[in-house]
């Protein structure tokens, strides 16, 4: 991977929103690689920098509040710390919320000695009148503490120098202060430790840590230990202790850590004032107001969609024009050099059309995710999840599910990946399977194109809103439906940290947009490109035949025997829908190929479809099937072929039923 003989492994760990990614990005710049943790659907971000010809490999561990085994993030994190033995685990804390964000440091220090603490956001702390004495923290915690800020470029140099020195010199001490619990708990820890030691350790984890975890009732640790030896008598003792004290030991241990931290922070920080109305509190009086929150939310999202739509239109038109000119030039050139007709067709209608299909959707995707990044970085996105919690609750969902829906309007792959923040399994699966109901940017293109052909602008806008509304309805109703098939488990109630409002930063917006739009460009790009080639092949064989005598033509005509009476979709309408299965972007290009016979596509389509047919087509393409990239995402996220199959057939069945009903009614009425 690198040609530097010396490699150091540095892990970054911290609560959400402490500026971990900001620091990580500053240190590694573009030397980053995003993958997945083995067997898990959690992002693994790695990066590196080089100093004095030595390779510093940085790992951005998932943002988490603790190291218990409640979530995959937490399991991945502690596995990494013990099994991969990084040279250093850097805990990123937030100077404005020191107690909370150092809690994770306390937990990590039980797991490894090689801990350093970066207290980030020192600029904000200073602005808020806080004075932090890192030396005092250092003395009491027993590990190096650095005061840094991601908005101050000297921090980067200091961090790099620190990492280098920490590894190469004895300048810093790593003697994490041992967390001492109450006497009763300490006795239990000793007794469990002894039993573990007597039997010989079977894991890489420190014995004391294992004992603490056993006390906490950590299922994953207990499972590992029980596989090796019998712990019944230990558990009996724990139960007796917990009962006699009426305690949840897990809560008790957290409490001890917090009370130790409280003392440490109180003696190292001056100027901290609790319980005062902050600026964010004041803004939230309006933004989260019980009457105003909904109108404001609707207004913000309306503006968001309008900007996405209108700002991207001229860019898309420009690209479109450029591509058709380019394609025309290439075609002429190929004809001039007497290239065989089939090759010309492959290059012009296959390859160039394929690249065009990808390019055309890039502006809309980039603008969409840039605007989301602004909402996210400012703190509004988390609040919209909070506001929507009440609405989503009516459908048995939590507010966080709303965010995956918002993401899905850009690209369903991103929407499906955004379900990772959903805590309840039933909710998550339901949102993964139904995300493709929500029209992504590609289907927005189809909807805008076709409604524009058939309806007055105001009617087109109304129809568009109706289609969006219907897709949201399907997602929510499906969640209720799926609820019937899952065991009624006790769902984890909503517990959500609400971040302070912040001025969005260009660097973050750029970064967030790039990661998400990059998903679309890389993953969907391949699918769209391959799908375009496939379409070309299907609609060109046998070569030179009229459309209805190609493979696609026969297929379309076969299927239309069923779809025409039922849904009003004739063979020329069926073919684009078939081609749209792998990638929805193909629908428009297929319409273009099939209806470009003599005159403008718009006129031809307008003349050949009745209004009920047009509505039927619009409704059908809206929800009928996830694209291949989405199917792949469903498979990755659920790790189940069965659910992936459901993810394909469920929308199809729902769409056939709903479209049939609508078409049959329209036929009677119009």
């Amino acid at each position, binding site marked *: 991977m690198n040609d530097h003989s010396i490699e150091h492994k540095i892990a970054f760990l911290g609560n959400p929103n402490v500026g971990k990614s900001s620091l990580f990005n500053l240190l590694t710049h573009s030397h980053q690689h995003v993958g997945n943790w083995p067997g898990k659907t959690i992002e693994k971000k790695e990066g590196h920098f080089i100093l004095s010809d030595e390779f510093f490999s940085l790992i951005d561990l998932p943002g988490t509040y603790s190291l218990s085994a409640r979530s995959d993030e937490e399991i991945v994190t502690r596995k990494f710390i013990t099994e991969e033995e990084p040279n250093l685990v850097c805990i990123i804390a937030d100077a404005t919320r020191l107690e909370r964000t150092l809690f994770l440091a306390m937990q990590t220090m039980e797991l490894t000695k090689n801990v350093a603490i970066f207290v980030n956001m020192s600029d904000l702390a200073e602005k808020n009148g806080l004075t932090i004495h890192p030396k005092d923290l250092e003395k009491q915690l027993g590990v190096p503490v650095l005061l840094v800020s991601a908005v101050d470029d000297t921090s980067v140099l200091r961090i790099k120098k620190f990492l280098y020195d920490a590894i190469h010199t004895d300048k810093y001490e790593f003697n994490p202060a041992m967390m001492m619990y109450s006497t009763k708990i300490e006795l239990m820890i000793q007794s469990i430790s002894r039993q573990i030691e007597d039997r010989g350790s079977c894991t890489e984890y420190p014995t004391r840590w294992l004992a603490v975890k056993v006390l906490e009732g950590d299922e994953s640790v207990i499972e590992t230990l029980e596989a090796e030896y019998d712990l019944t008598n230990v558990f009996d003792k724990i139960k007796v202790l917990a009962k006699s004290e009426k305690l949840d030991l897990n809560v008790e241990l957290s409490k001890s850590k917090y009370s130790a931290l409280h003392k440490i922070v109180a003696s190292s920080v001056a100027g901290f004032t609790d319980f005062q109305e902050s600026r964010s509190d004041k803004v*939230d009086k309006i933004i989260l107001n019980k009457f105003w929150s909904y109108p404001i939310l609707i207004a913000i999202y309306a503006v968001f969609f309008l900007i996405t739509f209108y700002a991207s239109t001229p860019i898309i038109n420009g690209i479109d024009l450029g591509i058709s000119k380019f394609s025309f030039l290439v075609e002429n050139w190929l004809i001039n050099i007497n290239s065989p007709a089939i090759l010309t067709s492959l290059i012009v209608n296959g390859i160039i059309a394929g690249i065009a299909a990808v390019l055309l959707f890039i502006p809309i995707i980039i603008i969409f995710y840039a605007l989301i990044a602004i909402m996210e970085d400012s703190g509004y996105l988390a609040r919209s999840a909070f506001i929507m*919690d009440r609405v989503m609750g009516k459908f048995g969902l939590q507010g966080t599910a709303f965010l995956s829906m918002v993401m899905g309007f850009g690209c369903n792959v991103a929407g499906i990946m955004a379900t990772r923040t959903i805590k309840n399994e039933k909710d998550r699966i339901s949102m993964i399977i139904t995300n493709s109901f929500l029209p992504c940017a590609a289907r927005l293109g189809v909807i805008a194109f076709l409604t524009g052909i058939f309806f007055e602008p105001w009617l087109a806008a109304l129809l568009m809103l109706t289609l969006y509304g219907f897709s949201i309805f399907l997602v929510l109703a499906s969640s209720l439906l799926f609820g019937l098939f899952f065991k009624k488990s*006790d769902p*984890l109630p909503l517990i959500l940290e609400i971040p302070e409002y912040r001025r969005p930063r260009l660097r973050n917006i750029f970064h967030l947009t790039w990661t998400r739009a990059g998903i679309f460009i890389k993953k969907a790009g391949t699918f769209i490109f391959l799908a375009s080639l496939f379409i070309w092949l299907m609609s060109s064989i046998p070569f030179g035949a009229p459309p209805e005598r190609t493979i696609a033509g026969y297929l379309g005509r076969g299927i239309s025997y069923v779809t025409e009476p039922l849904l009003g979709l004739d063979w020329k309408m069926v073919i684009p829908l078939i081609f749209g299965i792998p990638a929805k972007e193909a629908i428009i290009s297929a319409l273009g190929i099939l209806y470009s016979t003599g005159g403008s596509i718009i006129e031809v389509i307008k003349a050949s479809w009745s209004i009920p047919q047009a509505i039927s087509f619009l409704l059908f393409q809206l929800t009928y099937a996830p694209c291949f990239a989405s199917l792949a995402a469903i498979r990755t996220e659920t790790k189940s072929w069965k659910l992936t199959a459901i993810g394909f057939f469920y929308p199809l069945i729902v769409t056939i039923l709903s479209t049939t009903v609508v078409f049959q009614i329209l036929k009677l009425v119009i």
Partner: protein
Amino acid sequence: MNQLFRLIDVDVNKIVLVKEISAGHKAQRFLADLGIHEGEKIRITKNDVGPIIVEIKGTRVAVGRGLASKISVLMEE
């Protein structure tokens, strides 16, 4: 006047002492990790409809109403 209240019955801006959380294990532990447990002081920053928001250790945490009704607190004066 050492009367216990449910968190959902406390007015905005009041500072209260957490006395008891009688929720499921998972919720209790998550709350504890965030610093919300017995013996800790919190301030209520929002309580009308939808989830309640409390200030704890300089951070704001939203808690669903169902869960908030299972948190008993003592008024601080």
